[in-house]
Each structure stands twice: as C-alpha cells, then as structure tokens.
C-alpha cells in the first residue's frame, strides 16, 4: 500500500537561545486536510516550532518538506515562494497598521503575487466576505475589535491560496466573547479541507475538531495521538497531568 | 615632504592659538547659557502669566532667529545704539543668549515632567514655592534636563566656529587665514575638522559618563 505523501513534513527541529534549548528534535508530519493541534504548557516551544516551520525563526537544525520538496532556506526566492504557500496567523494579529482591512489583504496579492489592482481587490473582498467582514473592509486595524482583526489576518493568509495554515494561539489575545467567532472560522476552514497546524489552550475545541493532538513540553514532543487517546488514556504521565489540569481550568471552552 | 613638515610647523601653532580662543569662547558661553536657561526655564514654568509670557517671547525670538543673525545684531547692530562690543564679547553675548533659549526648553521639559503629586506633597508639608523648587524639583529636574542640555553644549562647541563671521578669530578663523595664504584648504580643514571631532567626541563621552554616574534606579522611564 502506497503511503500518502504528507503535505508538510518537519524533521528534527532544534532551536537554542543562549543556554536554553527551546526546541529539541521536534518532528511532524501533516497530511492533506488534517488539523493537527499542538498543546502544552507556555514556553514549551509551540510558538517557536510554528515559526521555525516557515523560517521566521531560524532553527539550529531541522528540515522541512512541502509536498515532497525540501525547502532550502538559503535560496531566498524559493523561501519567499514557500512562505506564500504557508499561511501564518499570529497571536497578536500583526495586521499592517497603516492599511485598511482591504489593504491588508490586497498588499500580499499585489506586491508578492503581482496581481493587478482590480483583480486583487476582487479577490480580497471575496476573502473578507468569507470571514464575514464585508462591512468593515475600509476600516483600519485600530478601528476593529480583536476578533475582527484576527479574522482579517485569516483572510489575508487565505488570499494567498496556501497549502498549509499555521495558527499560533490565534485566540489567546482575545476577549472571551470574541473567541468563538474565530474558532468557528477555523472550523469552517477545516470543513473545507484546509491543512492546518494550530497551537491552542482550548482543550474542548481541540478535542472536538482535531485530527491529531501533539503534546509539547520543554521543547520535546512528548506524545502524539488522536484526541480520544490523548485526553482519556494518554501513554505519558506528564500528558495526563497536563490534560487533567487544563480540563479543570478551561472546561470545554 | 619637507614642505609638509615645514607647513605643519607653521600651521599647528596658529591652529592651537585659535583653539585656545575657541575654548575661551565656549566655556563662558556654556556656563552663561546654562544659567540663563535655568532661570528662563523656571520663569516659564513657575512664573505668573506676565513673567512667563516675557520668558516665552524671549525663547521664541532667540530660537527663531538664526544664530548668524543674532551675532550680527550684537556686533554690527549695537553700535547704532552707541554700544560697541569687541568681536569676542559680542560672540559670547550672542552664544550665551541663543544657547540659553535652547537650554530653557530642556529645563522646562524636565520641570514639567516632575509629577504634580510631588509638588502637592511638598506644598502640604509647608514648603514655600521657592524652597519647594530648590529642594524637591531641581535635583530631579537636573537629571532629566541633563541629556538635552548636555547636547546643547556640544552644539555650542560646533557653533562657536561662527564667531569667525563677526571677525572673532578662533580655530576656524585661524584656519581660514592660513588656508587662504597657502591654498592648502583640504589639508588644513581636514585637520581642523579633526580638532572639532576630538572636542565633540570627548564632550559626548564625558556627558555619557556623567549621565550614567547620576542614574537612579527606575528613574529613566518617566510619564508626564
């Protein structure tokens, strides 16, 4: 039986800041349409791993393959092309403050993909509609709520037609009432077959929607498995400890 | 090569002579400028409406007129009123008054940044306005004004070269004279440039040392 080639393959990621080793030999395989969710204590390396995958942070060791092709970081042009295919959603949104919501989505299309102004605008409006922000396209980031900002950043990433989406704790900076609007967008994306790797503290959401859960602590992947396995009969004791504590705190948020 | 050596023997003493005059211009001007700045700064913040108004007008004029214009007024203009100042004195007057206006800006900023609460506390303890200024405000304001005022002194070191324009022969003046005699403009002005670079660099370094020496924990980030 031919094993399907994973869309994204990460091997042996290591990152050290001074004395501290933040990532230790992390490896990952993500298949098409899968939603892989990273969980674990803060400082465990989730954010670093995600940012190493698209080389925003340069790992000390580690290799990445997208659809079977390895990404050589030093080939600048290939790196930029790769990043277009990997969408990233940040915890702090990182919207471009000097551009409107529409501008945030069109800038990648015009300046990176080289689309014509009119075509870029049409596509951008379509993406913003998809995240339910049709009426806010002319607003600046400072005029948007946290949930709206995050949805713009999702539209911005989706407009580039990525193969994979990386979401770095997309709801951690949001007020509780606004979290659900972003999570429902993520659910929609999954339903439409987007391949995603996401880190989150929302155990309930993870349990419902994830295809696979990855538990990271102190830079090491301690355990991976289906939601059922991880949450009910995890192999590793540390995993069980963490899960029970979190479920206590957050319940099924 | 021999010529170069011979020239240096003529040039260096003359430049040194000029340097002495420059320092004789800079030091008094810096001191007077600081004193004027402190007084005017205080008047602008603590004075009543009329006094503050006059102080503010002074600053507007002496920061608004180019230094060159001010120097010309003291040297060429005062004779109209029967006052004849030597180039040297006119230069010091010009530098002090102009510099004082800029210093007062930094002093004013520093004074305003002292939280109102401390002033209220001092007043409630029974300090008179004068005592409050001296004991509570000035020690803190001094530290906050230091970077700005220090930089202003460094500007003064450079602007002292303008004394040449009212015929006061300091370092730049000496250089111009020798250069026009020997036509060795590039060499001489590179040397003069180096002299000034040394002066400003040393002054900057001293200023940084002094600032670090006076640094208080938690003091740097101040809100207004």
């Amino acid at each position, binding site marked *: 039986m031919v094993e399907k080639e994973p869309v994204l393959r990460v091997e042996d990621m290591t990152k050290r800041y001074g004395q501290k080793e933040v990532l230790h030999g992390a490896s990952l395989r993500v298949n098409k349409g899968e939603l892989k969710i990273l969980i674990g204590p803060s400082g465990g390396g989730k954010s670093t791993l995600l940012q190493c995958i698209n080389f925003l942070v340069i790992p000390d060791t580690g290799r990445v393959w997208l659809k079977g092709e390895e990404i050589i970081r030093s080939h600048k042009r290939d790196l930029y092309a790769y990043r277009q295919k990997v969408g990233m959603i940040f915890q702090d949104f990182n919207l471009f403050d000097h551009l409107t919501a529409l501008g945030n989505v069109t800038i990648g299309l015009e*300046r990176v993909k080289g689309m014509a102004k009119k075509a870029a605008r049409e596509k951008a409006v379509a993406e913003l509609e998809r995240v339910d922000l049709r009426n806010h396209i002319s607003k600046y980031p400072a005029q948007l709520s946290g949930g709206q900002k995050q949805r713009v950043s999702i539209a911005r990433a989706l407009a580039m037609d990525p193969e994979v989406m990386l979401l770095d704790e997309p709801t951690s900076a949001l007020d509780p009432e606004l979290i659900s609007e972003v999570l429902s967008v993520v659910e929609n994306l999954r339903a439409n077959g987007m391949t995603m790797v996401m880190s989150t503290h929302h155990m309930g959401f993870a349990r419902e929607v994830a295809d696979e859960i990855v538990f990271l602590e102190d830079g090491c992947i301690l355990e991976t498995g289906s939601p059922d396995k991880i949450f009910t009969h995890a192999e590793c004791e540390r995993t069980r400890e963490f899960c029970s504590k979190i479920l206590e705190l957050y319940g099924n948020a | 090569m021999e010529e170069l050596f011979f020239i240096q023997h003529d040039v260096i003493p003359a430049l040194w002579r000029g340097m002495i005059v420059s320092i004789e211009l800079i030091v008094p001007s810096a001191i007077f400028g600081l004193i004027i700045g402190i007084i005017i700064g205080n008047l602008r913040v603590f004075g009543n409406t009329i006094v503050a108004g006059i102080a503010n007008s002074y600053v507007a004029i002496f920061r608004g007129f180019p230094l060159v214009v001010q120097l010309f007024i003291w040297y060429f203009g005062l004779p109209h009123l029967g006052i004849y100042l030597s180039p040297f004195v006119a230069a010091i007057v010009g530098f002090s008054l102009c510099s004082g206006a800029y210093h007062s800006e930094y002093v004013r900023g520093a004074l305003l940044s002292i939280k109102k609460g401390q002033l209220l506390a001092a007043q409630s303890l029974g300090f008179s306005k004068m005592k409050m200024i001296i004991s509570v405000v000035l020690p803190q304001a001094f530290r906050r004004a230091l970077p700005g005022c220090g930089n202003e002194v460094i500007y003064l070191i450079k602007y002292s*070269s303008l004394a*040449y324009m009212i015929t006061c022969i300091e370092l730049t003046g000496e250089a111009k004279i020798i250069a026009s005699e020997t036509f060795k403009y*590039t060499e001489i002005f590179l040397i003069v440039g180096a002299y000034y*670079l040394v002066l400003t660099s040393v002054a900057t370094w001293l200023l940084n040392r002094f600032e670090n020496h006076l640094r208080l924990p938690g003091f740097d980030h101040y809100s207004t």
Partner: protein
Amino acid sequence: MTESFIVIYEALPYLIQGSFVTIGIICGAMALGLSFGILLAVGQVYGHPFIRFLVRAYVWFFRGVPLLVLLFLFYFGLFTLLNINLPAFTVAIIVLGLISAAYQSQIFRGAILSLPEGQFKAARALGMSDKKSILFIILPQALRLSIPGWSNEYSIVLKDSAVAYALGVMEIMARAHFVASRTYEHLPLYFAAGVIFLILTYLGTRGLKLLEEKVRIPGYAR
C-alpha cells in the same frame, strides 16, 4: 527712526528675493537629507555589520564637524582638489544635505525601531522579501512617525542656511548685510532678516503639521 523703516521698506523686495534663494537651499538640502537619511537609517537597522559601522562613522563625522568648517572644506578644498567647479549655492545644498542626512537618519532609525517586531514578521510570513517588507510595510509607518522630528530638523536647517553667506551665497542674511553696509542701518535690517526667518519657520512647521494631519491613520496611537 522713520529713516530705518524707509530703508527696510525699500530693501524688502531685495530681501524677499533672497528668501527664494534660501528656500531653494532648504528644499535641496532637506530632499538630499531625506533620501540619503532613509538609506542610512535602513542600512543602520537592517544592514550588514560593516554597513552599520560605515553609517555610524558617517553620522559621527557629519554631526561632529561644524557646518562652517565643512562648507570651507568642500567648497575651497575638496571640490577644488577634484577639479569640480560647482557654484557656492550648490555646494551649500550638498553640505547642508549631507549633514542633515546624518541627523535625519537618526530620526528615521528611532521611528523604525519603535515599530512592533510583528509588522516585519507578518510581512515576511506573506512571502515578502526584506526589501519589499521595508518598502511597503516599515517605511510607510516609520515616515509618518518621523514627521514631528523632521519638522524640527527643518527649522534647524533653515537657520543653518544663513551660514551659506560665508561662501558668498546671496541669501537673506547676505543681502541684509549688503544693504546694511551701504545704508548703515544694520540693526533694523538684521532684525527684518530675522523676522523673515521667523515667518519661513512658521510657514514650514505649519505646513508639516497639516501634512501630519492629512496622512494620519485613524486610531493609530504609538
């Protein structure tokens, strides 16, 4: 006393022509300072360590040597040596521009450094090269933030332009002195010159304030 006013009144057109020369010097110098200053700032923030060293050395030199010395050095020294024959007006623009670039680079550098790191990250995440990120994301924001500092630099360069008189450029100060040496009305004429400079300062800073309002991003608070 009335004599003085008559002299000023008659000299006014001549002086105002001088302000066009002054304005020309400022425009040239500020433009040179702006373009070169941005390059220096970007080099100092994002460049190779060697580039950063060069920029710091440049800034140290052009902020440490007096304007008058640099004017003499360039006009009588360097350009003569290189056999380049430029009018004093042009040399004044070049020197003032080079000095202003050194100061402006620090204004822009401060503004660039004050932007959150996430802006650059998000740009790169979209696949933008460093050059595009700086051009389309960093600079538009940094330049807006720099307007107050730039306004301050404008008033400094305006006043420094009077030193061009030492090279014989017939700007406001030179003309005032010219008339004064013929009419002996030094005091009133220099005062008038000073007032013209005040007016030019006011017009410039006012204009820049309007520009700041015009390009302001709604809700942007840094």
